[in-house]
């Protein structure tokens, strides 16, 4: 019997506790940066995430794509030559300036498109020579990357609301990480800027028109959340290294930075090193806050029809409030009821019972959660069923959710899934750091991840129905109907429209970049018309062209 006590005690001691934000220790550094540290005993490595509030939403149109470029060119790797003090890099800097000038000359020459006087071959040869010289200054092996050499990994992501850089390293490399990150922000060297810009432009060109981007553009017109980066390719290709550096210095400020550390580090050991490095970064003079337009949620029911290569797809987006709004959690629960897990309503009814849809995905806060965004339903019909049928079935499910009582077992199931997801989210260092970072960037407070979990326990089915009646109404809705192109990758009507718009623009606008942007914007707006209306518009536009250009 006396053996039972130690066994019981040992068993109790082994029981794990759900992670709690009280584990998160917060400190504010002298320059305004925040430090969030979660100590995980026994780990011999750490995960670090740097979160800069802002992201794509705060980019001016002239710098569209800057956050994506910074994710690649500034945080894509950690080359020793990028972290050397600037006075030791005079020759590299001079070559980078020459490369910048040549790239710009080449871009303008290519836009001029005059074969008779083309300077392109000569410029390309000079650029090639400069880039060969530049490469002599670059590290030639990935294992010269400071973090890779220490066994670490590094990734970065540009979101609508933030730039996030994630690093994982063995504990022993913590001091190296602190010094490197501070130096990275001081110098913003961007030595491989031209490669990063070319790779991003090629990716955007290759992906073509995306259904989700089309939906966001139509649902959030005029707001950066509705911006499609592919429409801004000319601006992206015109963005220079010096301009991106200036943009980085303005936006990647310590007072907009949160440093999140999860691992075997204690606050006592980590804080002094953080204060000496990232905490010592100078705070630039106050920058102007970006003023973003407000879009009324009840903008009206909007519809877009388009023909894209691929398969049929229905995308419906409802304008919803930002993450801090009291209704946001209720909408999260609505998404769970409709599309969560393996037994959500859309899957059960539209896929399993009616065999109407082959795929049904729901997501919240597209493209971000800091400002009012979208709740998106993405459905693909089974062959033989039309998009109109799918649209009607989706609308029926929305009405059922708004009007019929939610069964208790279904409610409990959705609740269990959200709770389990919360536990999983807090488990791995990378997912915990990302959740904390997004909560801060989108909601202004990292504690939201726990507050939402607490509020979930007091959420009622009535509150969910009330929120869905308010926000998932036709006046908040935008629908995109995508039909596959029969054979070509681009709709012939759209190709003809692009040709006419380009011809019209070239006769009236001098600046080639502005011209291409105007054509992209025009095409996006024309996609909102029916096929018949587009054919009619094409005729009207063609009539404005001189006869030889028709």
């Amino acid at each position: 019997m006396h053996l039972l006590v130690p066994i019981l005690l040992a068993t109790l001691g082994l029981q794990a506790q759900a992670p709690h934000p009280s584990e998160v220790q917060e400190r504010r550094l002298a320059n305004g940066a925040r430090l969030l540290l979660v100590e995980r005993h026994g780990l011999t490595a750490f995960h670090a995430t740097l979160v800069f509030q802002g992201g794509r939403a705060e980019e001016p149109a002239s710098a569209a794509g800057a956050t994506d470029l910074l994710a690649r060119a500034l945080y894509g790797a950690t080359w020793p030559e990028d972290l050397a003090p600037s006075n030791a890099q005079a020759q590299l800097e001079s070559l980078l300036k020459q490369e910048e000038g040549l790239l710009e000359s080449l871009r303008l020459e290519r836009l001029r498109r005059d074969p008779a006087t083309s300077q392109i071959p000569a410029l390309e040869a000079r650029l090639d020579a400069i880039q060969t010289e530049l490469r002599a200054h670059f590290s030639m092996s990935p294992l010269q990357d400071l973090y890779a050499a220490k066994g670490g990994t590094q990734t970065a992501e540009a979101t609508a609301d933030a730039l996030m850089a994630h690093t994982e390293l063995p504990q022993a490399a913590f001091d190296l990480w602190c010094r490197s990150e501070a130096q990275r922000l001081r110098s913003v060297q961007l030595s491989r800027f031209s490669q990063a810009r070319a790779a991003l432009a090629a990716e955007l060109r290759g992906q073509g028109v995306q259904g989700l981007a089309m939906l966001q553009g139509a649902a959030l017109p005029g707001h950066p959340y509705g911006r499609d980066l592919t429409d801004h390719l000319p601006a992206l290709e015109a963005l220079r290294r010096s301009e991106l550096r200036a943009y980085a210095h303005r936006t990647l400020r310590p007072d907009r930075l949160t440093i999140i550390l999860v691992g075997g580090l204690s606050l006592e050991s980590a804080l002094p090193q953080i204060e000496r490095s990232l905490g010592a970064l100078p705070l630039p003079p106050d920058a102007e806050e970006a003023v973003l337009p407000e879009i009324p949620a009840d903008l009206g029911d909007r519809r877009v029809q388009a023909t894209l290569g691929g398969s049929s797809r229905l995308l419906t987006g409802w304008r919803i409030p930002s993450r801090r709004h009291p209704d946001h959690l209720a909408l999260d629960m609505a998404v769970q009821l409709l599309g969560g897990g393996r037994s959500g309503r859309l899957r059960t009814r539209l896929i399993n019972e009616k065999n109407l849809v082959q795929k049904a995905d729901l997501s919240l806060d597209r493209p971000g959660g800091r400002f009012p965004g979208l709740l998106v339903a993405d459905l693909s019909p089974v062959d033989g069923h039309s998009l109109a049928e799918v649209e009607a079935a989706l609308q029926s499910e929305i009405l059922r959710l708004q009007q019929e009582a939610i069964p208790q077992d279904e409610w409990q199931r959705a609740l269990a899934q959200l709770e389990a997801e919360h536990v999983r989210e807090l488990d791995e260092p990378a997912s915990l750091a990302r959740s904390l970072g997004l909560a801060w960037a989108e909601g202004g407070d990292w504690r939201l991840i726990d507050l939402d979990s607490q509020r979930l326990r007091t959420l009622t089915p009535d509150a969910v129905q009330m929120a869905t009646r308010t926000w998932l109404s036709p006046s908040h809705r935008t629908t995109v109907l995508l039909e596959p192109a029969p054979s070509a990758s681009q709709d012939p009507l759209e190709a003809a429209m692009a040709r006419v718009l380009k011809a019209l623009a070239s006769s009236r606008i001098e600046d080639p970049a502005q011209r291409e942007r105007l054509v992209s914007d025009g095409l996006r707006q024309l996609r909102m018309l029916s096929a018949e209306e587009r054919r009619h518009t094409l005729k009207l536009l063609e009539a404005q062209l001189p006869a030889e250009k028709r």
Partner: protein
Amino acid sequence: MRIPLAAVLTTSLASVVVLQAQPRVQTFTLPNGLRVLHLEDHEHPLVRARLHLSLRPADLPPGRQGLPELALRMFAHSEAGDLKAERFDRLLDDSGIQMTQTADGEGLDWRIVARSRDQDRALGLLADRLQRTVFDPSDLEIQRLACWRQVDRPADSPHAQLERLLRRDPASTPTLTSLGAIAWEDLLTFRALVFRPDRAVLVLHGDLGLEQAKRLVLLSLGTWTPQEPPKRTEPAAPATPSSAITAPPASPSRISVIGTGLRVQALAPRPDGLSPEAAWLLARLVPGDGLLFPVRISAEPGGLLATLDADTSATSTHAWALLHLRLEALRRRGFTQGDLDRARSAWAETRHLDSLHPEAQMDAALAEATGRGVSAERMAALNLEALNAALRSWLDPAQLRSGVSGDPELMKTLVRP
């Protein structure tokens, strides 16, 4: 060749540190032959399980590519014991249990993540799925079609489509013909051959002790016994398309996108017989090597993927030749002893990072158990000649799978190497 003492010491020391910081792997085997690897970690109230079934070449009859993927779909959409598929899914959702299944060239895997309080239900449902699933013949055509959609994915971007096509090994890639040729008997035979406890490894990680794990596994999977394969009355039919699938297959090497530049890619599949140690080192050394410029290489699960985006008309014409030229230059040059030492040192350090990822700990334990893991001893013994021989074999031009996406007009000007 002598092994540098410093490298051996670094490696050994790192191994000791890592072993101290991560859960110890404890193993046991059930009487039915199921091997279990257990990693105890009480940091959070979560339990993870991964059941791995290894595949052998003899499991797949010729011309039946896609059989593992189709079998997985049939499992996921069939009744398990007295539970209909929808009821099964609801039970998982009732407890917020995540269950996913995947198939690749090496095997089939089920992965589960559950709160520790739901571990009994999670393992019980996995056992139901494995042991008591009853296939419905009338579901075969539906799942065959769904399987093709899963493979085809026409909605992907052109770049994603090209990469997907290159990543697939033609010998195991499902086609319309191969999926259409899979007969009911093929499915049952495959299930009987592969779904056996003595071919399975179960990895458990998280908030459960060893004794608890033994009890749980014995209760849920202790009664798992192999099934008898069906007796074939006639030989397997030759591969012909099913009537349900009529769409033509996508071209494996050319994808047209009007108005875009050319992207040329080549995938070097990992060669058979390449040691895990050489594979790890080359996957770190090759990508980003300065000699490759302007070609970029990334290490993917299926091999090394080389990409060249041609942005000018001049580069477009010779893009393919340039890409092959750069790969060949690297293949001939090889790496130096300094490169090898740096990569080996990075490997020793990288092991610390597994402590941040429970799934990585499980993968490492499984790889070790199935003889696919990187061993410290073999890593220390690998010399430069062996590394460069492995590089030459991996970048063998005869094995490259090449493809191009972009404007069809530009494609016409492309000179093939």
